[in-house]
């Protein structure tokens, strides 16, 4: 059972401003039904004063997602667009008397929907989340979002990032990447680079043995855990040729799987490795 404050319970059981404004002056949509939470806010804005006259929301999500949305609309009413821009996810969480760490992403979602709505109000082109570099494929979290949330909330650990954005919360294959992003965010000069340094050059035999070992010990057990499998067909120079087996054959995520295998091999064997399907 989550430890929700009375305020969260109140806004969950009696959400304010539920619905959709007809002919809104601003719309902000974030999330999708697959992730398990989605939020749509619609605003009515006085065009002269840029003051938000009315705000309504619709949310698909858990108690804290509904409460965060409800609070956001309350915070927005009466503020100018400029003032609204200053509302952070922490403001939403604070208003609720705090949220469980694992649920901070609900407040982040509120802040994001607000940003979308403001951009929409200003007539800027809506950014398409999918065009950004997606780090966490399970929850569709972009690198930009991770950087932003990390900076805004002074997050320094991967675990905190997961609590705030969900990134890395499911399959975990992006945890290394998140760590690299965090390093980059918090160290001023060091450029973002996943550690690849292999000081001495491997012989062909060593390379083949290493690739086999990684596939056997790390990659295959992981795929097998999901009913899939992979077979090493051949190694031609730096080209690793593999064949999908079992559930992997029909899996629509094949491309991602291939890429993650390549990432792993590049990380350990060398940057020049290329993984292709037979």
């Amino acid at each position: 059972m989550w430890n929700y404050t009375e305020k969260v319970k109140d806004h969950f059981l009696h959400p304010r401003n539920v619905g959709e404004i007809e002919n809104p002056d601003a719309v902000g949509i974030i999330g999708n039904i697959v992730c398990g939470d989605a939020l749509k806010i619609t605003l009515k804005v006085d065009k002269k004063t840029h003051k938000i006259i009315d705000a309504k929301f619709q949310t698909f999500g858990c108690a804290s997602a509904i409460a965060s949305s409800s609070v956001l609309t309350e915070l927005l009413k009466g503020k100018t667009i400029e003032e609204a821009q200053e509302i952070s996810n922490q403001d939403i969480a604070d208003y609720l008397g705090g949220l469980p760490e694992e649920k901070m992403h609900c407040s982040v979602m509120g802040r994001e929907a607000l940003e979308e709505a403001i951009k929409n109000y200003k007539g800027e082109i809506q950014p398409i989340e999918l065009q950004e570099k997606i780090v966490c494929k399970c929850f569709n979290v972009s690198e930009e979002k991770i950087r932003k949330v990390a900076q805004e909330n002074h997050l320094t650990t991967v675990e905190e990032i997961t609590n705030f954005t969900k990134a890395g919360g499911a399959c975990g294959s992006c945890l290394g990447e998140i760590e690299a992003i965090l390093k980059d965010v918090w160290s001023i000069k060091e450029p973002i680079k996943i550690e690849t340094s292999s000081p001495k050059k491997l012989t062909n035999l060593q390379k083949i043995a290493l690739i086999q070992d990684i596939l056997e010990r790390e990659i295959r057990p992981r795929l097998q855990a999901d009913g899939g499998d992979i077979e090493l067909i051949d190694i031609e120079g730096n080209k690793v040729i593999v064949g999908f087996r079992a559930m992997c054959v029909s899996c629509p995520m094949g491309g991602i799987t291939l890429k993650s295998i390549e990432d792993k091999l590049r990380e350990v064997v060398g940057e020049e490795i290329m993984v292709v399907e037979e």
Partner: protein
Amino acid sequence: MNTLYFDNNATTQVAQEVLDSMLPYFRDYYGNPSSMHTFGGQVYRRIEEAREQVALLIGAEPDEIIFTSCGTESDNTAIMSAIETNPPKKHIITTKVEHPAVLNFCKNLGRKGYRVTYLPVDNKGRLEIESFLRAIDDDLAIVSIMYANNETGVIFPIEKIGHILKERKVVFHTDAVQIVGKLPVNVKDLPVDMLTLSGHKIHAPKGIGALYVRKGTRFYPYIIGGHQENGRRAGTENVAFIIGLGKACEIAAKSIQKEINFVKKLRDKLEKGLLNNCPDASINGDRENRLPNTSNISFAFVEGEAVLLRLNEYGICASSGSACTSGSLEPSHVLRAMGVRNTAIHGSVRFSLSRYNQEEEVNKVIEVMPGIIKDLRLISPFGRERLMGKRCST
């Protein structure tokens, strides 16, 4: 506020008779069953009686029962024993929908060089026998397949699988935690080598379980130490809890048929009431072949945690496969393995009944649920168009 408890697959209320049977063993008969004196020895005899009671419920011989601390320990012990006694064999077959006690244990072994096959299920949660047959090989150390699924209640063809494995002399373990006490289980007719059961699912307290190990099965203990449980499970016996488990099994054995009819009737009424009164609701799992007490229903366009907390306002206890309720951000692995659409997984609610449920409680759920679903759908940006045409009746 009254508690309306519909979460019996999570845990059950301890039966009064069970509690009564246990209390003297805290207060009065606190001797160590291993002691030489009569004071301890009398406790030993009571443990052996409890062993007989547990054995009787599943048609076993008393010396085929090992008391453990819980279902998880029994599961871990069974798998580890098969591996320890079959050192060259490196292949394990289980399913994608096991309880974490088996699933995560196997995943861990997978990281230690064992090859694990996770059998898929179809969209009704049924095991695909063909994929099981294909997975069998000479390297097989153990097959561990649950008897009934905790989330959907779907029952697996353990007898059929057992016969196939018996011919090949492969160790077969089943996690029967959810089925024991809910439907008749008889190991005399069931070709399994090991079977797990747990106390707190059958009105005994948490912290006590048992592992059935068929006579002649090679066994290696998981917890090493003293000679308790015939050297098969070390550690001073959890006397009162063992006696409680024995009592719970005795009650279950006596009343099982009556309870099946009672619980099934209530479950069916609940299910029918919810499906009739809430649009876009559907049952997860094979309706023909599942536990009589379990109902897993998906309400599209709403999120499970929100539903549970609204139910909570009425004192109604249920559970959900939604990501938000898991603590891991991951939606139910069982419903995912079944290929249930994400929208439906997030809105899944499991009701699981017991002998202590009453018809009025079922009526109450049927009364309040349509309003909760309707209300949350009005908040939700999804499925509103459909709601307009086909309203939940309140």
